[in-house]
């Protein structure tokens, strides 16, 4: 009971922390809108050349672009989640303070990241999405049930996103400077989530492989549910399985890592 309140407070803190920087949020909204604008024209040209590419029509491709811009910061697809701070704390040794807290390390950072994600969705995601679907011919579901099913894909997507980034951050226990791992994770995420190009456009075996990887839970899976291309229950099961596996792996690595920590005196 008390623990639940603690993590809710941490999440609320994460939300408020990002909500403080209004100018930065506005700048982000502007930048995401500009990038969406550029991408949407390239996608329209692509679908104009080859209608029904990957099973989408051009209106669905437009929706996909703007959903991507809405999710970019929410799911930290371009980096910028709590992992930067966590890695810095591991590097400087401040992590020792976190380990002394009467709270679980993974749940603490998960709560902080969920608070951040919810703010980024509301503060940075909604406006570019609305701008995009109002200014371009976009496909949106008419029935509330599909919207509800789509909303259901968001929490597991946030869990998968955190699960990946938590593992990335914990690598700092071994590497100290995790800049290289962060960059690799960013590249993999961008490529495999659908941010670069919808995964159903990828040819052959490459397409099948990227669709089975955890990153497809982030953008491709929610988009497919919104566009009526995927069964919601199957999607939840896929996302849930990856979330569980990644969080369990995070817990395992965390226990290995905390056994290694040597706090320097001095």
């Amino acid at each position: 009971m008390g623990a639940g309140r603690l993590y809710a407070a941490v999440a609320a803190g994460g939300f408020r922390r990002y909500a403080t920087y209004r100018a930065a949020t506005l700048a982000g909204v502007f930048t995401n809108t500009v990038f969406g604008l550029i991408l949407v024209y390239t996608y329209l040209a692509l679908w104009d050349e080859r209608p029904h590419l990957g099973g989408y029509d051009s209106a669905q491709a437009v929706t996909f672009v703007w959903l991507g811009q809405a999710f970019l910061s929410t799911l930290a697809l371009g980096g910028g989640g709590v992992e930067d701070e966590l890695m810095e704390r591991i590097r400087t040794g401040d992590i020792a303070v976190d380990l002394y807290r009467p709270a679980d390390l993974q749940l603490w950072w998960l709560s902080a990241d969920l608070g951040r994600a919810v703010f980024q969705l509301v503060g940075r995601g909604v406006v570019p999405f609305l701008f995009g679907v109002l200014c371009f011919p976009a496909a949106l579901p008419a029935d509330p049930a599909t919207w509800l099913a789509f909303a259901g894909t968001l929490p597991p997507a946030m869990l998968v996103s955190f699960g990946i980034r938590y593992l990335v951050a914990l690598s700092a226990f071994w590497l100290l400077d995790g800049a290289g791992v962060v960059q690799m994770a960013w590249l993999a995420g961008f490529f495999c989530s659908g941010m670069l190009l919808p995964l159903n456009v990828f040819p052959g075996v490459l397409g099948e492989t990227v669709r089975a990887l955890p990153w497809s839970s982030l953008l491709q899976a929610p988009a497919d549910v919104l566009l009526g291309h995927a069964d919601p229950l199957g999607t939840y099961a896929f996302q849930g399985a990856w979330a569980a596996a990644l969080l369990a792996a995070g817990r395992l690595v965390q226990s290995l890592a905390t056994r290694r920590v040597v706090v320097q005196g001095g």
Partner: protein
Amino acid sequence: MADPVDATGPAVRAGLTRTEQRGRLREGLRAYRLIAGMWIRSTMAYRTSFALTTLGNFVASALDFVAILLMFSRVDALGGYRLPEVAFLYGLSTLSFGLADLAIGSMDRLGRRVRDGTLDTLLVRPAPVLAQVAADRFALRRLGRVTQGLLVTGYALAGLDLHWTPLKLLLMPVMALSGGGIFCAVFVAGAAFQFAAQDASEVQNAFTYGGTTLLQYPPTVFATELVRGVTYVLPLAFVNWLPAAYVLGRPYPLGLPGWTAFASPLVAMVCCALAGVAWRAGLRSYRSTGS
């Protein structure tokens, strides 16, 4: 070099100012060279890290081209342009932007310096602030993007079936350098803007990274208003779209006349001059945090 203007009155004053300006430019370049050199030495202390981050820079830049290759795995043309033509646009856009990013790409850190007050340190040093900010954290790893742009340009040239003339060959390095100049102006103007909107440094990305992404695709892909905007308002079209129209023998965007393909150096100079004015205005409006 002797100045032929050697009269009395206003000419002397103008001459003096010009000498002063030239001295200031030389001083700025010298400061830039020294600071950049220092950062290169500091980078070279960790050679493995340098190699890996340069590779990372290369791969991150290549990702956009992978997207184009994936698109062309499903279609034969995009906006009426075939793969080697798009690759040509991509290569020169990336090369131009890469050069600007290498030279002064760290300028987007200015907002942070304004916020935490460390800009004050630069103001009291006896060197032009612009040179100091531009060379700050000079990142040699950004050669990764330049290399990637060069490679894609080479790939495009191998695939293009063009009738080459000396003028076309000469136009390519001119494009890369003037394009770099135009992007430098965008970086400087963006930094000037950060004096006013410290937290909003991300806005700059829309014009720098957004600009290079836009130019990687043919102008025929985009709406006319957007093309008009990046021609007349923010003249990014002069980076590669217009000169490339001449090299590739394609219709000019917006039906512009043929000479516009050769206007890039002039446009770059005007852009840099305007960015310089914006920078001075920004710097004048600077107020220290006082902490």
